[in-house]
């Protein structure tokens, strides 16, 4: 037997080589890239159930489900209002078209695209719903997840205050129905502050600094750098709180004309939401702007008491209407359409849910006839079939995390 050829020498070295390779890049097979995770039982089932229950409620309100693709051409996904997501979007080169394609970081804009292109001839108002996963380059400090599930509804082609009230009430109804306690909706007017700043002639860097201070509710900075707008902005900021109190406080402030009209619209929408959802807790924050960059009217954020982060957000925007540059010629823009809608984030929604006990799970020992299983499943049981005979069915049921075992044709608690 030759023991010293080059092949033998290599084989003798091989185990060590592999060992050191593992040590070198220390990539454990279970390690996932930052912000990504496996969802295991029972969470994966609960998440899927929750999404379907939410979608069913949206469906009952006439919101028809659409399913846009995961990736699109960068030029259409990040066009117009989509530009706000530029830094959050993963891109790759499409080897077929040799153009940049982008993975969606948000689904709202895909729905707006569908509404203003393929469904442009569908009657208005158009109600669409969707559920899917989005991917972001960076999570936020509070939501480090880079892949997040979204569930949402968009109401396209109506400027009526009833449309604004409908989407807020619908989001609340859906979350109530799946059992989120302590729901609270914070309404805001993202264009109020810009209108005020414009009316007072504050612009450029000064306006930016003021917006940043308002985002942090930094009363000291507003007073220090607000100049002519300090009193009005300070007053608006202090007014934030429960809806009725805030509306009364805002009305006591002498706002410019454009701002008055917005407050009137908000007042009407609050009334209409109350009609539809009398028990919903409503707050108003007249200066909130963060994350509402492409919104053009009443917008909202959904919270639940003692839950970290937002459950969802939504508001009024304009679908279509911007010109698209496709590299060859500017296409005529579709008619701009007043729209509103909301997106729920499934991770936060799940965090807010209280879970009941697991459904009962019964072990069907080896040899149980097929019909028994069919009957039990029809009655709501989860059945786990024994594939081989075992000595102790009760112990086997315990090992496989079954709450029950079938004894004499009856599920018996373990």
């Amino acid at each position, binding site marked *: 037997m030759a023991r010293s050829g080059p092949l033998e020498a290599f084989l003798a070295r091989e185990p060590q080589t592999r060992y050191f390779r593992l040590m070198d890049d220390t990539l454990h097979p279970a390690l996932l890239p930052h912000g990504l995770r496996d969802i295991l039982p029972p969470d994966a089932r609960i998440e899927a159930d929750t999404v379907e229950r939410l979608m069913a409620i949206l469906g009952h309100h006439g919101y028809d489900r659409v399913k846009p693709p995961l990736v699109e051409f960068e030029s259409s996904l990040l066009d117009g209002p989509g530009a706000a997501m530029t830094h959050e979007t993963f891109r790759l080169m499409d080897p077929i078209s040799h153009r940049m394609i982008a993975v969606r970081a948000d689904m709202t804009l895909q729905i707006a695209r569908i509404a203003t292109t393929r469904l442009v001839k569908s009657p208005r108002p158009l109600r669409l719903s969707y559920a899917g996963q989005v991917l972001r380059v960076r999570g*936020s*400090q509070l939501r480090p997840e880079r892949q997040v599930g979204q569930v949402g509804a968009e109401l396209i082609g109506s400027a009526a205050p009833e449309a604004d009230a409908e989407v807020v009430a619908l989001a609340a109804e859906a979350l109530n129905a799946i059992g989120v306690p302590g729901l609270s909706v914070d309404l805001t007017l993202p264009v109020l502050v810009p209108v005020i700043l414009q009316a007072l002639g504050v612009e450029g860097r000064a306006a930016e600094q003021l917006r940043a201070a308002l985002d942090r509710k930094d009363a000291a900075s507003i007073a220090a750098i607000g100049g002519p707008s300090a009193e009005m902005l300070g007053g608006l900021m202090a007014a934030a709180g429960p809806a009725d109190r805030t509306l009364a406080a805002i009305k006591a402030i002498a706002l410019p004309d454009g701002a008055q009209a917005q407050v009137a619209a908000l007042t009407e929408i609050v009334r209409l939401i109350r009609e539809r959802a009398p028990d919903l807790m409503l707050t108003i924050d007249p200066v909130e702007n963060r994350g509402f960059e492409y919104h053009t009217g009443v917008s909202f954020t959904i919270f639940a008491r003692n839950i970290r982060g937002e459950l969802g957000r939504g508001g009024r925007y304009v679908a279509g209407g911007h010109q698209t540059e496709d590299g060859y010629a500017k296409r005529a823009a579709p008619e701009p359409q007043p729209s509103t809608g909301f997106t729920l984030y499934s991770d936060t929604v799940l965090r807010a849910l209280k879970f009941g006990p697991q459904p009962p799970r019964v072990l069907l020992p080896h040899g149980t006839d097929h019909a028994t299983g069919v009957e039990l499943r029809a009655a709501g049981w989860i059945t786990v079939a024994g594939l081989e005979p075992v000595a102790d069915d009760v112990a086997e049921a315990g090992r496989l995390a079954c709450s029950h075992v079938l004894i004499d044709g009856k599920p018996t608690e373990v």
Partner: protein
Amino acid sequence: MRGNETLVLALPKGRILKQVVPMLARTGVEIEPEFDDENSRQLRFKTNIAGLDVIRVRNFDVATFVAFGAAHLGIAGNDVLMEFAYPEIYAPLDLKVGQCHMSVAGPPHLLATDEPTRWSHVRVATKYPEITKRYFATRGVQAECIKLNGAMELAPLLGLCKRIVDLVQTGSTLKANGLVEIERIAEISSRLIVNRPALKTRPDEIGEWIRRFEAAVDDAA
């Protein structure tokens, strides 16, 4: 995970705490006696008000607890708030305590010979790398930050770097170490901070606390 129903107020350990406790007393809050015992290992304390607890943590951690909603209210300097820029923190009230400023400092000969317009890169020792980077970036200079957790003044002395960015109260520490203030970056004071979802979902309770602190600040003035 669900948060606490009991409101939690996070207070910073150290220098600011001495000024904060009398202010708390003016808002009607008295903390259990264990709080004053510096050797106590207890971290969470009851108050005379049912439904309000107090925790004592490092000043940087006050912001973290409040940002994540583990504490609903807190007291933190705007140096900490600027460094972290947590989107979930509101800072609705200047408590007008713990006043100082954040400055760039260095040895006096630097001030005399340096020509800031020629800088493209500076090396700075600081506890505030984010603020420092942003500050120098606004003037087109890249700042390489050496993160230290204290005794910043040693860095120029021992040749770690020429400049530091740190809080300056009276300037006596700088002077004692042969450094001078070169530029002021920001005025610093302690702020009442609030977790954003807490303010949205419990506006009456949290709003009441903001008003109480406001009254306590006005009393002091």
